[in-house]
């Protein structure tokens, strides 16, 4: 590839990452995006033994709610076996499963809410990301005792193992304008949804703006298509060589870690493909020889 490959950070928050990628083909960018969803393993509760439960929520509902609680997986990724190596593992295998326990009881006059923070964890590296997620609301004289087993898993198996809530890419929107040629109708249409853009346009009179902010440009596109067609003063187009990627984590892994893991997963798959091809070539070569 002759184009220069570049990555520029646009926004970084604890659970969110936005960056600009340049010089990468669309299929590769999309593969990374999809690998973020399906091929990055994280911890989630997969097996629940309920000893006692007379709360209003059925065992299955509580198990389901427990499974959806994000668990910290940063260290677990190094410690625990990958899902493909745990297919045969039983729940006592400490290399596959992390154990969490929940024991709550209310007295005759007592009421309480059970939080994710009440989960007692045996491995301090695998604990709920948020401590204030309500699991169940208890009335007096109720009991809940259970033991839960968490393991690494892939998003393609169940959504509870998806490390991201958003992984998306889009083309970079580019606006070209000349304030003297813009029609009144066009400008007021844009001003309704993007007042800051109109301000910029009026200030710099003529030029080109790349919209790298985290905003939706569909209304702008609508204006450009319907209200700005009769003049040359305003144009919106998308640069299909550069992408803005957005990764939003559920909290179990940092967004950066997710992207790196996703890239690793793709590299592994590509290497696997090459070795398999090699094998086929060798085999067919032997037949011919």
């Amino acid at each position, binding site marked *: 590839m002759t184009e220069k490959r570049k990555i520029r950070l646009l926004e970084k928050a604890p659970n969110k990452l936005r960056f600009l990628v340049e010089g990468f083909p669309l299929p590769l960018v999309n593969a990374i995006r999809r690998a973020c969803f399906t091929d990055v393993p994280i911890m989630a509760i997969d097996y629940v033994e309920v000893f006692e439960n*007379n*709360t*209003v929520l059925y065992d299955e509902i509580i198990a389901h709610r427990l499974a959806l609680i994000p668990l910290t997986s940063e260290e677990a990724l190094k410690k625990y076996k990958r899902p493909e190596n745990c297919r045969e593992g039983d729940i006592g295998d400490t290399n596959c499963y992390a154990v969490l326990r929940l024991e709550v009881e209310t007295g005759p006059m007592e009421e309480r809410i059970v939080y994710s923070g009440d989960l007692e964890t045996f491995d301090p590296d695998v604990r709920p990301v*948020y401590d204030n997620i309500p699991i169940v*609301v208890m009335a007096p004289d*109720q009991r809940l005792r259970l033991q839960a087993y968490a393991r690494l898993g892939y998003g393609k198996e169940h*959504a509870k193992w998806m490390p991201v*809530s*958003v992984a998306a890419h889009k083309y970079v929107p580019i606006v070209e304008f000349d304030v003297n040629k813009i029609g009144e109708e066009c400008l007021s249409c844009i001003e309704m949804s993007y007042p800051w853009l109109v301000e910029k346009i009026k200030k710099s009179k003529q030029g080109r703006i790349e919209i790298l902010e985290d905003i939706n440009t569909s209304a702008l596109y609508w204006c450009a298509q319907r209200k700005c067609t009769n003049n040359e003063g305003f144009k919106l187009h998308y640069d299909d060589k550069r992408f803005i990627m957005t990764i939003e984590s*559920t909290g179990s892994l940092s967004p950066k870690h997710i992207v790196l893991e996703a890239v690793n997963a793709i590299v592994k798959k590509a290497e696997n493909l090459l070795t398999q091809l090699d094998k086929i070539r060798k085999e067919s070569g032997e037949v011919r020889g």
Partner: protein
Amino acid sequence: MIIPIRCMTCGTPLAQYWEEFQRRVKQGEDPEKVLDDIGLKRYCCRKTLLAHVPSIYEVRWFRRVL
């Protein structure tokens, strides 16, 4: 029934915001402002908190016999 742990549309964990959201709205704040403060931008997540009815507070008395 009880606040969903995640947004059923996009998968963002939401339940951790519920008590703050409920408290502030009960105190008379505008839900729109509270949601903005929490940082929920997508309307799938916003509607999940906004439209939730915590009926578990009424039904929790009907305990099951062990």
